[in-house]
């Protein structure tokens, strides 16, 4: 079994990762963490640095889950890179974080979550950020 999780170093991304780790441990599945950036700005806050990745890896290992961390600079948008990875690993489940977007925001930026949910070939687990 394989679970793919879309990860960003944000509270929402952490929530998705935490759920994915728990789910992977419960199902005894392999966990594939996807973190991507367009790679066209000097700084991208959605791109995890070495320190953040080390923390994440430690959390996954503590749960006793086998895992892959993939970081891509392919210029694909995040939804596309999650979907591609899911196809590549023949994933059984995709875990992503979802949040409210205003209609205008959705129009301008699109919704990564919506694309993943609608285009995925497997069930998608949508995680919300913990309240408070």
């Amino acid at each position, binding site marked *: 079994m394989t679970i793919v999780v879309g990860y960003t170093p944000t509270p929402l991304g952490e929530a998705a990762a935490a759920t994915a780790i728990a789910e992977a441990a419960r199902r005894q599945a392999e966990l594939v963490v996807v973190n991507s*950036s*367009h*790679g*066209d*700005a*000097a*700084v*991208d*806050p959605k*791109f995890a*640095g*070495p*320190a953040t990745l080390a923390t994440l890896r430690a959390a996954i290992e503590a749960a006793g889950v086998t895992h892959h961390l993939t970081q891509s*600079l*392919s*210029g694909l948008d995040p939804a596309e890179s999650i979907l591609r990875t899911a196809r590549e690993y023949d994933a059984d489940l995709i875990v992503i974080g979802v949040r409210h977007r205003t209609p205008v925001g959705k129009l301008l930026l699109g919704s990564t979550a919506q694309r993943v949910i609608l285009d995925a070939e497997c069930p998608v687990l949508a995680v919300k950020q913990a309240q408070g």
Partner: protein
Amino acid sequence: MNVFVDLLNGFATVLSPANLFFAAVGVTLGTLVGVLPGIGPAVTIALLLPVTFNFEDPIGAFIMFAGIYYGAMYGGSTTSILLNTPGESASVATAIEGHEMAKRGRARSALATAAIGSFVAGTISTILLTFVAQPLGSLAVKFQATDYFALMILALVTVTALVGTSLTRGLLSLLFGVVIGLVGLDTLSGQARFTLDQPLLFDGINDVILIIGLFAIGETLHVLVKGRTRPGQVSPLEPPHGGFLWLNKEEWRRSWAPWLRGAGFGFPFGVLPSGGAELPTFLSYTYEKRRSRGRKEFGKGAIEGVAGPEAANNASFSGVLVPLLTLGLPTSATAAVLLAAFQIFNLQPGPQLFENSSDLVWALIASLYIGNLLLLVLNLPLIRLWVKVLEIPRPVLYSAILVFATLGVYSLSGNINDVLIAYVIGVIGFFMRQLDFPIAPAILGAILGPELEKQLRTALTISNGDPSVFVTRPLSAVILALAVAALLLPYLPRVIARLRGRPATTEKLAFADED
């Protein structure tokens, strides 16, 4: 006490709402481009030059340009400290200790010592400029054509020798610039030179076209080819700790002396033709490191290593203005662009500038005081905003630059051929970047080349064609000898190492191209 009256008049000009607005726009834009790696003050000023053509009063334009230069120096330190990617070349030394400090959770202290040091040193050197400029200007009246010729040779040679990793490449770049500068009809004989028999080149290639082509278009192509890069990691700002202006007592105590010493390095090296701010920042860094050898903190985030170089790079700008305003002699790429700006407004920097356009000169000097203060106020509180600038995707940024560059060039003459020339030069600039040729010598060569030829001709006319005038007049001879020495200077470490019987460690003293 004439200076004070003049300076107060300058303040009166600057403190008008319109000019204050230009100062604020300048420092904001300057900070933005300083924060962004790859885009420096020279290209920003070049891109804005066409915009200012329609200004009724050139004072506003120059206040804005000065603000851009200062702002870039402040902004560069932010990227150096938080990202370890110097936003511009004069902040390279800051990155060494500054980023270490940030990694150890002292980012605020590093940013504060950089900003306050910049303010202190900038103000000190502006005071020096205030008092040195006019006397030097009246001294310069006695200079003859041979002296000017020698000074220009010195400026060209030192910048070429210090910038970039290879002297040969630097000299080739300089030669390219001089050739571009000479394109067009000769002013005396009316002969067409380097025009390839194309009438559209008879007027020569405008300096602004060259600068925009080499810097803006060349850099855009360079970034395009580089493609995607791994995003950098911004060090987080620690929660505010106590102390006055983000610095605690101990940090104030350790910072003030490096600030003053940094100003001491920056101003004179700005005055001397040494290619701008890089050399004094490295000297200041090396000096602070030597001085505090006992502390062993260098390399692990010593505050002195941030305070000194940052003070030096800001102090050098007022220094750079001294030869620019009094002799019309640019000593860095940005100064060369400023000289082009003066020429566009039909102002000839030199001894007469203080008499003919004293309003402008003193307003410019007064604006430096104001700009420094504005930057101190803008910089620290808005630090999060400046960091956000780094998240702008490059495609958006550089397409905007390209649009600005194209519009700017087109607006110069309304002639599409100029745009084509700019793009051809841009492609040349791209290959220069790719093949590691420094850009600054080409810019200086193009702007100083025609002036150099003019002085050479005048000198030879006066001497009836006898070239020995350059060595028989002591002042000229000394300056020319210095120029020869400057050519050898970058190889000095290697020569010394060889003499001491040790294998040479460094190839050549080299400083990053100022962009």
